């Protein structure tokens, strides 16, 4: 078990958003998290990563209780969170962004080779390495964000709606890369997505959320077989 979340309750100040959330992720698995707007999907990722402190429940990662650990320690442990917005430094170049992401890694000597690996996954980032990140297209920015995470070789990626703001074609590219990263590096992914079909295709298992709770757990393949999914929303 890579990640086990048990009965998580969390929110913003007095506002409670999560009401006893339980989910788990095995090493190397892509797990989808879908649900209507306002169901608490982003909140789930933020609580797991420690940007929000849970009121109740447990977050167990590789048998360690990291419920109240800071985001910095979670990063060190191998979890990378990519939010929906504001996930890159717009006023810095692509190279500087990558350096920023690597900044707190203990072994700084591996930066060059790691960066080379990232450029292999994302050739467009190599082509634009001196360009200001804020001037990249939506899809390129998303790739930079994922690339920044890849640099740290995380064991678990928490991806919040990687399709948002992207054209269908751009997202197809991103989806392909997520697949590749997972198959070649065995990186597990907890994928929050509004593009439900894509989520079902990518994910081995899917959790469906509604109003702060999980209402269904099913394999991606089973869900794809259905004709429609209105009852999930």
């Amino acid at each position, binding site marked *: 078990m890579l990640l086990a979340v048990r009965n998580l309750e969390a929110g913003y100040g*007095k*506002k409670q958003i999560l009401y006893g959330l339980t989910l788990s992720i095995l090493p190397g698995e892509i797990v989808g998290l879908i649900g209507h707007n*306002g169901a608490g999907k982003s909140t789930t990722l933020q609580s797991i990563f420690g940007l929000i402190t849970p009121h109740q429940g447990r977050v167990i990662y590789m048998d360690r209780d990291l419920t109240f650990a800071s985001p910095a320690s979670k990063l060190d442990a191998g979890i990378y969170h990519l939010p929906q917005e504001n996930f890159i430094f717009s006023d810095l170049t692509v190279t500087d962004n990558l350096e920023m992401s690597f900044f707190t890694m203990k072994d700084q000597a591996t930066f060059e080779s790691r960066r080379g690996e990232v450029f292999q996954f994302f050739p467009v980032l190599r082509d634009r390495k001196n360009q200001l990140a804020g001037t990249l297209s939506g899809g390129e920015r998303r790739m930079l964000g994922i690339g920044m995470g890849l640099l740290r070789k995380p064991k678990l990626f928490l991806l919040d709606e990687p399709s948002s703001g992207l054209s269908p074609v751009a997202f197809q590219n991103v989806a392909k890369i997520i697949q590749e990263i997972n198959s070649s590096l065995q990186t597990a992914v907890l994928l929050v997505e*509004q593009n439900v*079909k894509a989520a079902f295709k990518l994910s081995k298992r899917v959790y469906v959320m*509604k109003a*702060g709770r999980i209402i269904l757990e099913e394999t991606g393949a089973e869900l794809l077989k259905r*004709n429609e999914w209105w009852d999930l*929303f």
Partner: protein
Amino acid sequence: MDYLVNILVFVLIYAVLVQSLNLIMGYVGVISMGHAVFSAIGAYTAALISVHLGYNFLIGMAAGFFLAAVVGALLAIPSLRVRDEYLIVFTVGFQMVAYEFMLTARGITEGQGGIPNIPVPRLFGFEFNTPLRFFPLAFGAAVVCFCIVWRLVHSPFGRVLKAIREDESACRALGKNTLKFKVLVFALGGGIAAIAGSSLAYFITFVSPGSFSIEISISIIVMVILGGEANFWGPLVGAAILVGLPEVLRFVPGAAGVVDVLREIFYGLILMLMMIFRPQGILPEYAAQAKEYQIPTDVQGDGNKDSVGDEGNLSLARRKTDTTQVLEIKGLSKSFGGLQAVKDVSLTLASGRITGLIGPNGCGKTTIFNLITGFLNADSGRVYVRGKEITGRAPYKLVNDGLVRSWQDIRAFKDMTLLDNVLVARPKQSGEKILSLFFSPWQVAREERENYGKALGYLKMVGLLDKAGHLAGNLSTAEQKLVALARLMATECPVLLLDEPTAALDMESVERIIKLIRNIAKQGWKTILLIEHNLDVVRGLVEEAYFMGEGRVLAYGEPASLMANPKLAEVYFGID
């Protein structure tokens, strides 16, 4: 003895000055760093009128009041377009310009030296020429000013001021012309400050720029904060402590020489410490604990009956067959730079029905709400409510036309009680007009009692009557959403635009809100347009829905048939 009375007169004059700033700062939320300028206008006008024109002090004070009121009203205009920190800097500029004017416009102000020998006030031969004699005059002026402010603040007008301070957009959406309120408050605040200034001029029979510098403006702010912003007695406490105390300290042996030196340090320290430890001041705004409210037995507000609103005047038969299009949108379009957020959208709402507006994230639903309610200007298209065109009308006018909206982020007035939250939404309150407030008090009182009963009735309808005296900010999200609904009902508008009323709620709260909205629609014969992402709510509540994608209306029909459409499924769930 004379010296003590002297101090008392200064305390009274400053209390009035501080109360006038409290009106602007505490109740409208604008921090003015140039408030001493209004005091200067009063002082200099009084001086010039009495010295050069020979008129008596009453005329001098009145002239000062009106001139400062006009300048104050003009100052409200930049406050529209300039926000927060920038507005504060603007007032600093205002203070600097005025001070320079006092120093250099020697022809009028006689510059640095000031205007001496202002005639002592005189009434029927009696001269107010000693502190003891002047005291009743100062006391009388203070009482009159405090009474005016009291009446203003503890009234429907004052309630709107608090709501403006809380959330001006939400206040406008409830039908209040907030600009008018701000102009009036700035005018009155300026005018009352001028009364203080002219009193000072007649007391010390001398005016000079030194009494109206930026340091004075800052010290007035400190007094507001120390006493307690938006607390009625705060200015008196602040003035007594910061004006009275240092003077009284002079009597302490050895302190005399040090007092002046320490005064500035003292003021600065107070500002710093108060901001950290007790920003609400010595006297908090709501001194009493949350009260329990009972609906007065003689004014039973039946929330059910009253939510019928205007429609109650129509006969029952007509209501049932009324198929007028209550809300009609034709060809609405809006783009932001290169992004076309809303593309040629047309929709109609039939009377008495609940219509949904659904679609994937970012398809333009909230933009449409903003376009209908005037918070955004459309590039093209028209909006009609009950046949009357309202395209581009200012938000506050729409309540009068029968349309009101809710907000995705609730926007309850957090530092006001639930009762006040609902009361402020009541339409056509004569107590919100200054003239009625002072010259038709009986009518205002009668309307207040009626509105009180009705407001409690609406709170009862949403199940929050027992918390009527609680501050909205202390309630849970779900309860705040209920208050927001009660607030909408209180406007008696027949057309409600609800923006994601169940967002971020747990299942039980969602159920509760669904039932409530159903009740509201049925009993009050309301027409509702509802944006929702939780499709359980759409299925449970909505009779027809418009399905949107990428800024356009793609389909219209019953939820079941929309969800059976494979093309729409593609839009909602993503393309392969």
